[in-house]
């Protein structure tokens, strides 16, 4: 469904992505791991096309994400690829419900009533039915991230990308976010997750990709990864991160 083909990206002289290729099938959970600064976040931005690629292409259901001469991918593509950010990026001037309803109203053209009805359902699904009228500043980190997940879901995307969704959270809030993500995975939502949560990767991932220095070093199933990693860089990284 989502095909990433030989994606290259540089910022000035710094080559961040040096030819990334993979595919994600419907209902699959792909987990991307790797040291900080290896290009994972940039890769996600290149996949939904809010960052241009220098070379290569991304296809969503066969349609190219990157179009010649356009700064961003077309709206029709972007709204089908949800994104959850490390620092939540909730719209601070809107309530939780306002955050979830904004995209459906402005992009999909739903009426406010329809969008809010569905928004409440989604907030209930992430366990925040009672927080609909709170502003982001009044929510905890874990609650903010769950609202952000509901906001992404509200667009009915084909795939949702998570960029280190628990890295900015206090330890006691990580589980509530991971639980929501596990629920989504179980319901068959297609996901690409950049994370350092190895427990989550082991339990939920269908495929794991290990990236280092702008390249994919190793890929495979969780069993392969945690029991049988081949590449020395992968082993070294895992030995540092698993304790």
């Amino acid at each position, binding site marked *: 469904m989502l095909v990433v083909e030989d994606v290259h990206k540089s910022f000035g002289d710094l080559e961040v992505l040096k030819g990334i290729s993979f595919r994600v099938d419907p209902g699959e959970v792909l987990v991307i791991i790797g040291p900080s600064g290896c290009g994972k976040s940039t890769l996600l*931005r290149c996949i*939904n096309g*809010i960052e241009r690629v220098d070379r290569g292409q991304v296809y969503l259901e066969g349609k190219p994400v990157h179009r010649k001469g356009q*700064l*961003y991918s077309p*709206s*029709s593509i*972007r*709204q*089908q*690829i*949800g*994104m959850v*950010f490390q*620092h939540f*990026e*909730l*719209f*601070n*001037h*809107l*309530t939780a419900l306002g955050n979830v309803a*904004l*995209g459906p109203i*402005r*992009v*999909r053209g739903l009426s406010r009533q329809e969008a809010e009805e569905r928004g409440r359902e989604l907030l209930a699904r992430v366990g925040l039915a009672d927080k609909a009228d709170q*502003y*982001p*500043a009044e929510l905890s980190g874990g609650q903010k991230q769950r609202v952000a997940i509901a*906001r*992404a879901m509200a*667009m009915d995307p084909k795939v949702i990308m998570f960029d280190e969704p628990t890295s900015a959270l206090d330890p006691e809030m990580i589980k509530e976010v991971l639980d929501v993500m596990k629920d989504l995975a179980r319901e068959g939502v297609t996901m690409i997750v950049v994370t350092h949560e190895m427990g989550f990767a082991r339990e939920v991932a269908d495929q794991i990709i290990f990236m280092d220095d702008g390249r994919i070093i190793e890929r495979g199933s969780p069993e392969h990864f945690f029991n049988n990693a081949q590449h020395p860089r992968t082993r070294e990284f895992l030995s540092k991160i698993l304790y």
Partner: protein
Amino acid sequence: MDWSVLWRYRAVFLHGLKITLHVSVVAIVLATIIGTLVGLCRLSRNKLISGLAYVYIEIIRNTPLLVQLFVIYFGIGQFIHYKTEFWPATVGLAIFAGSYVAEIVRAGIQSVARGQMEAALSLGMDYRQAMRYVVLPQAFRRILPPLTGQFISLIKDSSLVSFLALTDITHAARKVTASTFQAFVVYVGAAFLYFILTASLSQLAGLVERKVARSARS
């Protein structure tokens, strides 16, 4: 000192107050429009557009307002016949204040983190929608205090339009002084009228700020 002159000439002062208020309100509206547009142009990726905005801001901010008003009123007035003093004076004030508003708007937009734009884009919004529904509403909350300060300056600066024969508060004060020789009383009275205007604006801005305060915390 004869404080009764303020009462005796109240009609002149009230007329001046009306003119100052009229000039200031229209100039504030125009400056907001100019400032927002120029501030957005300043952030444009198009080098020509952002360059022109930069040149406008620099020229206007680095020359005296009174000279700018003279250029517009007497200078351009050489070629175009103005029917009233109101528009050249008000537009002059707006062009001046607009350059400051542009910088406030630009800084406000830039202070709304890039991540907010990216979040809006990943919902499928285009750049315009992201600006309109996500970035500008948040920037507005942040620029409200400096904007209020700028508009208070504008009201005070509007006293310069009295040089263009506009019968504002300052002009009224000069006129009354000429016929009563009560300069101290008259100018203190004039200052008080300006103070009423600026203090009201502060109060109004405070009201708006408190109204949006709940979501602004973050």
